[in-house]
């Protein structure tokens, strides 16, 4: 236990100091830590699910607080919670199917469901519809309660199968929950690390010969996506906006060139000038909000507006760990992060004309260096996630598959 505690603290520190960058690596680290939390958590005989949930929540809150703008952390924590709930539920249903009612789990499920009912009728209805569509035969409980927990997820079937096979030995059910959960989390890890390939596989459907693609920022997903198309013998050219204060576009350009793509680096200011000759804008998202809005590297909104003006498709690549169940409010400010002014302006350059006298009122000079940019859903043409392409308007539904409504507020 102290072991886990220290790794959590270490990770929290890293997050706080922004040592970890990129939502994918953050997500991966978070899942791994949560897995170890789960495996170390001593499970009480009764009410094990809630014990696990509490433990994960406690750690998750720490992690989220460490870097609230890194939405991937919160997403992953919610995903893990969802896994726990779902495993619990499937065990419970299995148990019910076997007419072997275990007080503890049933109570727990009841408990959850009571809370779940408190949520909007919409999500319940949606979840009920989803539950019907899953492979699992609709149990009495899902039909009656229509809980969001039973919403479909890619590995529902597998976990369902798991639980099916394991309902036989009901004696080991106490240990099985944790085991199932860890298995589910492992699935999640695989999914996160494999999302690039999943997304890149679809590249060939979206990129045609002689296409001109504009991208900005440095995203591994975009890199893989473009390279996948290149490997399939498509020849196209890429414009990369350099991404001013951090120049991540240069890094991306370098890697693209190393893989043999025709790459042109342009300044960020030339985005509008060039967009008229671009066939498609492809960017990697930092996070995708439930309304279909995108948080991306700074400058993305400009590119999206320009793309809209010239009717150029604006495609966002996002792994499922970037799907955030929250609806944004004033995301340009609230979900943003201001970095050091020194990236923009050398202090020495203006220090001589600044007035440092006391009582001179507000500082004369402010330097604004935000990290992220928000693109409203109306500017996005398509999301490509590891489950396929989706409209911005569909994102809320996709997101509802991955999270349980109980966890939205952590």
């Amino acid at each position, binding site marked *: 236990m102290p072991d886990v505690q220290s790794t959590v603290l270490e990770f929290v520190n890293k997050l706080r100091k922004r040592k970890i960058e990129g939502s994918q690596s953050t997500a991966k680290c978070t899942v791994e830590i949560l897995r170890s939390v789960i495996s170390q958590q001593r499970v009480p005989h009764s009410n094990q699910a809630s014990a696990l949930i509490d433990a994960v929540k406690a750690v998750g809150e720490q992690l989220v607080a460490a870097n609230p703008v890194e939405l991937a952390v919160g997403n992953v924590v919610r995903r893990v919670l969802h896994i726990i709930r779902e495993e619990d539920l499937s065990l419970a249903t299995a148990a019910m199917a076997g007419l072997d009612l275990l007080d503890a789990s049933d109570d727990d499920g009841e408990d959850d469901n009571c809370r779940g009912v408190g949520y909007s009728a919409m999500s319940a209805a949606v979840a009920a519809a989803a539950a019907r569509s899953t492979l699992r035969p609709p149990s009495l409980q899902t039909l009656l309660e229509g809980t969001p927990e039973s919403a479909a997820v890619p590995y529902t079937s597998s976990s369902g199968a798991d639980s099916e096979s394991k309902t036989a030995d009901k004696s080991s059910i106490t240990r099985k929950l944790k085991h199932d959960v860890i298995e589910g989390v492992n699935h999640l890890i695989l999914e996160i690390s494999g999302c690039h390939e999943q997304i890149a596989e679809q590249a060939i459907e979206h990129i045609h010969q002689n296409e001109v693609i504009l991208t900005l920022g440095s995203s591994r997903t975009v890199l893989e996506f473009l390279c996948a198309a290149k490997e399939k013998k498509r020849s196209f050219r890429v414009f990369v906006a350099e*991404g001013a204060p951090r120049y991540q576009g240069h890094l991306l350009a370098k890697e693209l*060139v190393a893989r043999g793509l025709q790459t*042109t*680096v342009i300044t960020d200011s*030339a985005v509008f000038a060039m967009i008229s*000759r671009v066939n498609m804008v492809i960017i990697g998202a930092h996070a995708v909000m439930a309304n279909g809005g995108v948080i991306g590297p700074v400058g993305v*909104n*400009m590119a999206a507006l*320009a793309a809209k003006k010239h009717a150029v498709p604006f495609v966002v690549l996002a792994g499922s760990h970037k799907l955030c169940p929250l609806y944004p409010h004033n995301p340009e400010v609230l979900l943003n992060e201001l970095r050091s002014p020194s990236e923009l302006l050398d202090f020495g350059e203006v220090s001589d004309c600044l*007035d440092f006298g006391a009582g001179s009122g507000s500082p004369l000079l402010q330097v604004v260096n935000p990290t992220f940019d928000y693109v409203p859903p109306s500017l996005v043409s398509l999301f490509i996630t590891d489950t396929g392409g989706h409209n911005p308007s569909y994102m809320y539904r996709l997101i509802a598959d991955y999270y349980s409504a109980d966890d939205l507020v952590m």
Partner: protein
Amino acid sequence: MDPRRGPLAVPKVRRVGFFTSIEPSPETPRPNRSLSGPAEAITSSSPLSDSPSGQFISPVQIPPSRHHSDNLASRAAPVPVPGPSAFRRQLANDRTLHVGSYNPVDSLLGTSPPSSNGEVSEDSGSLFGFQRSDSAKLSASFPNGGFDMTVAVRAPGESEAKVATASTSDGRKKNVEASGESESVATKPRKEKETRSLKEKTSKAERRAIQEAQRAAKAAAKGEGSKRAGESSRPKPSKPAKQPQPKKEAPQVTSSVSEKRAVSVEKERRMDVPQTQMQYDDKSRVDKAKRRSVVEQTESKNKVELFLHLPQYERGNQLPNLSSNIFTLDTIHHAVYKVGLQHLAGDIAGDNARCIAMLHAFQEAINDYTTPPMKDLTMDLTAKINGYVSFLIECRPLSMSMGNAIRFLKNQIRKLPVDLSEPEAKASLCSEIGRFIDEKILLADKVIVQHAVTKIRDGEVLLTYGFSCVVEMILLYAHEIGRKFRVVIVDSRPNLEGQKLLRRLVTRGLDCTYTHINAVSYIMGEVTRVFLGASSIFSNGTLYSKVGTACVAMVANAFSVPVIVCCEAYKFHERVLLDSICSNELGDPDAIANVPLRNNKKHSKTMDNNKNLQFLNLMYDSTPAEYISMIVTDYGMIPPTSIPVIVREYRREDLLL
């Protein structure tokens, strides 16, 4: 209007800009005026009270230009417009001008406060300054002229012109007596009607008599009162930099010449106007040009395919070589050569600065010029200038405004009277160039500042992009007169001109926020106005400016923030442009490749010779007109749709240049 009508057809009213007509009198179509001008003019009879109070000239006012016709017409815009005869009279004035009699009274009036019947000397230098300082009075004085209505009728003939001249000089005398008088507009509509009906009935002479009587009565009645009021209510901005005196012969010369060739000039201009850029993907022409060129540019190895039609050269390697033979070169004047090198090295930045430097160099070159024996000054000098220009183009592609300035100079050379001796011709040219600089650039900037500052209110957050000297002047002036506002400076790589502006503003004590262009949509939420500079504005309203301007304008538009473009009218261009690809300039790609990253500085350098990697350093982009709310020029504040109007109307009479 219709070019076939000839230059002296019924004068037209140029009403560009916004009009603050508080009581818009109904459009009264006048059957006897088939032509657009006068009928339009009456419609904007705004009361005098509307004329700018206090320190600002009316935002709707179109400053006068050099010619009478324009003076009256354009100034008429915001103020009670006198009705058709004013234009008639104006026409008459034009006539006197064309005849070539230089009337000293003209210049006298031009420099002094305007006469009550709204006449101003066409002498250039004073006009903007005059307009600025006297706008209140100007507008006040206008209605008086309005009762000149019946002076002339249609079909301008020589005799009529004389009559009109007489009448105007009459008016002038009266003005000297009771200069600056004004009158309330209350009586105006009635009188207008009266006169209008009068005109239908009475003969020319009768009408004139009536009108003279009216004017005399008014002059007696009004006295000095309003003049004082006008004077006290307005501050005196700085005097115009240049007074018109040295210009005496110039207008005469130009007008008499243009009189003769009025039609052919139009055609000629058509011919020489589109100095279309050389297309650099045309192999044979490029080779030809290269053989002649002074500057040996090495073509860059890694060209961007989309921009093969633009010159893509390696930078910086030919400069020492060139600067060494500055004195050995005989084909190019050393002043021009120096400016060319400065352009090449990027020592002069900013369109105005480049243009002024170029004109000064030409001035010097013309001063040192002697016509070779057996040659014609006009022809030879034009050829010389052409040589200089092509040298400058080799150094760095000309900006649109420089192109306009060169066209102006060539026009001036062409218009030189043949009987002028060489020193006279040279002096005339030099003074014309000086006038161009003073009037079209420096004074225009001042006028723009005066206009634009009316759009800055307390508590505003103004955003500007890059470095524009006009915008800087506006901000500093607004700060000077005590406006409280905050400035957001948006900057972009690779030039980072915004830092220069930031420095200057912070030193002067302005509240500044500095950010880069990517963050523009972050900061735009708090911005209330966007001020942009311009390199050129095309006649479809497209703004051609430093790259990134379009992005800023677009984001501002998305956030419903008004975009105000500040641009001197000499930068207007009659070309049209849709995108930023066809016409542009490419900067040094290395400027982009070199990234100020601390850890991996060289990551791009190592890839330099990979043919798959290109760096594109675009210098300009074009902003569609729909993103521009308003253009502030020396002719007033206009929407982008009025650019072709200004270009067409003013260019035709050589007013723009």
